[in-house]
């Protein structure tokens, strides 16, 4: 129910020391290429390449990664089937024989393309989540001039997500111990109590945190202390050539359809 495994890997993976700009730009640019692709070829290529990086470069256990992507990918597959049946206008290529349902060529192509884009984009997102610790993301947000107040709130929020997560897990276990969550009605009651209690505690906690910050001469804005790291020419070149290769592929496969 509550897990923070992705964040654990972000702090201890094979490429955690690689420059954060390099990782973030790689993930986002590749994600964008996957998105503008009009044929499924490049998104699927991206999925394969990024999966390779995740398992062999970032050294994320393959078993964990494959299990993690099962749910979103089954959703992507359902989307594909759904679109193949309901989003076609042309002639049927396969009649299902029930309720006059049929698969059409354009429905099939649209569904397949969407599924491929989800696979490509989702693997890039997972790459980012698994390899880049959140504090590095914060320093990038600061660099690109996201308003200070937003970064500050995000920083505090990140920290307290984990504090509350631990507390919520303990509360959940203690409710289970007293037979909460046994049946629909009890589940609502238990969950309502958990959420309410957590809410009260968050407010008390908010006051306490402000006191501790004041004690350390807080003057109204959190001045962060970071050492800037340059992305490096080699990384830029590597990134540019990789993305150009993907873009070339996108151009060459433009509009290519499966059926």
């Amino acid at each position, binding site marked *: 129910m509550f897990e923070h495994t992705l964040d654990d890997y972000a702090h201890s993976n094979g490429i955690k020391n690689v420059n954060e700009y390099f990782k973030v730009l790689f993930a986002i640019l590749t994600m964008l290429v996957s998105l503008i692709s009009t044929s499924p070829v490049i998104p699927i290529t991206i999925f394969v390449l990024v999966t390779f990086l995740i398992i062999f470069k970032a050294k994320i256990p393959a078993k964990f990664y494959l299990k993690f992507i099962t749910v979103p990918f089954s959703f992507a597959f359902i989307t594909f089937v759904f679109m193949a049946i309901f989003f076609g206008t042309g002639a049927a290529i396969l009649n299902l024989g029930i309720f006059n349902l049929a698969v059409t060529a354009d429905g099939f192509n649209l569904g397949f393309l969407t599924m491929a884009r989800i696979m490509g984009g989702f693997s890039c997102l997972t790459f980012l989540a698994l390899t880049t610790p959140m504090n590095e993301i914060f320093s990038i947000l600061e660099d690109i001039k996201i308003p200070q107040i937003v970064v500050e709130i995000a920083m505090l929020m990140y920290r307290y997500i984990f504090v509350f997560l631990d507390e919520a897990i303990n509360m959940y276990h203690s409710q289970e111990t*007293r037979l*909460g969550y046994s049946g629909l009605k009890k589940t609502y009651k238990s969950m309502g109590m958990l959420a309410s209690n957590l809410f009260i505690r968050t407010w008390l906690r908010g006051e306490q945190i402000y006191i501790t910050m004041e004690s350390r001469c807080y003057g109204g804005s959190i001045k962060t202390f970071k050492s800037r790291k340059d992305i490096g020419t080699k990384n830029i070149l590597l990134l540019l050539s990789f993305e150009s290769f993907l873009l070339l592929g996108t151009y060459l496969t433009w509009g290519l359809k499966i059926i």
Partner: protein
Amino acid sequence: MNIIETKDIAYSYPDGTKALDKVNFKAEEGKIIALLGPNGAGKSTLFLHFNGILRPTSGKVLLNGDEIKYDKKALMHVRQNVGIVFQNPDDQLFAPTVVEDVAFGPMNLGLSKEEVEKRVDESLKRVGMEEFKKKAPHHLSGGQKKRVAIAGILAMNPRIMVLDEPTSGLDPKGASQILKILYELNKEGMTIIISTHDVDLVPLYAYSVYIISKGKIIKEGNPQEVFGDVKTIREANLRLPRIAHLMEILEKEDKLPFDKPYPLTIGEARKKLRDHFDD
């Protein structure tokens, strides 16, 4: 008769780190058992196996000699029999008033309103908190919260009560009140399992002691045996009870004629010292 027993249980987190490694733990019916270990040794993880909240990656847990099953009905039965009092009472008290909180467990058992009321009253009386029925839990002191948490478990009529660091954060009076309650419950036949790193108190109540370190049981026995093995105690980031430490120093450094085992409690030390003076 072991009312709870684990056989070679291991537990790993989703990312593969081992939290428990082939743990064999036995609790004899009607006794008080202490599980001693430093922070992060796996005490709480082991406890969550006792009532089926966590399911071991391998090995099995026996309740009353029968292997625990993990279907809904079986778990209901297990949890009614094995009550856990969590370390931080704030995690356990979630209802707006004391009485609603204590009633949470019995209500989930599907008891009649009268029965629930009866049990709530009895349990609160038991822990000396009957006057606080209508209070909101967050207006109580640490020791009072702890007692309400114990009442919440008592109201389910368990046969075994498992307590995670029951005295941590409490002042001396608060801690001794809790221990007194547990002692009385035990006298009436309840099996009690306590995790702690407060070594001074363990010899006062424990029938047998387990030491856990890094997910493994590294020592078990009665208090004399366990605290006799000073090396293991220190390896587990623990220490001797202060009284035993004094006796150890007197013997080793000052060559005073005490023989092992060192006395662990004030009562034992008193006897030993008196005997020497009488000689």
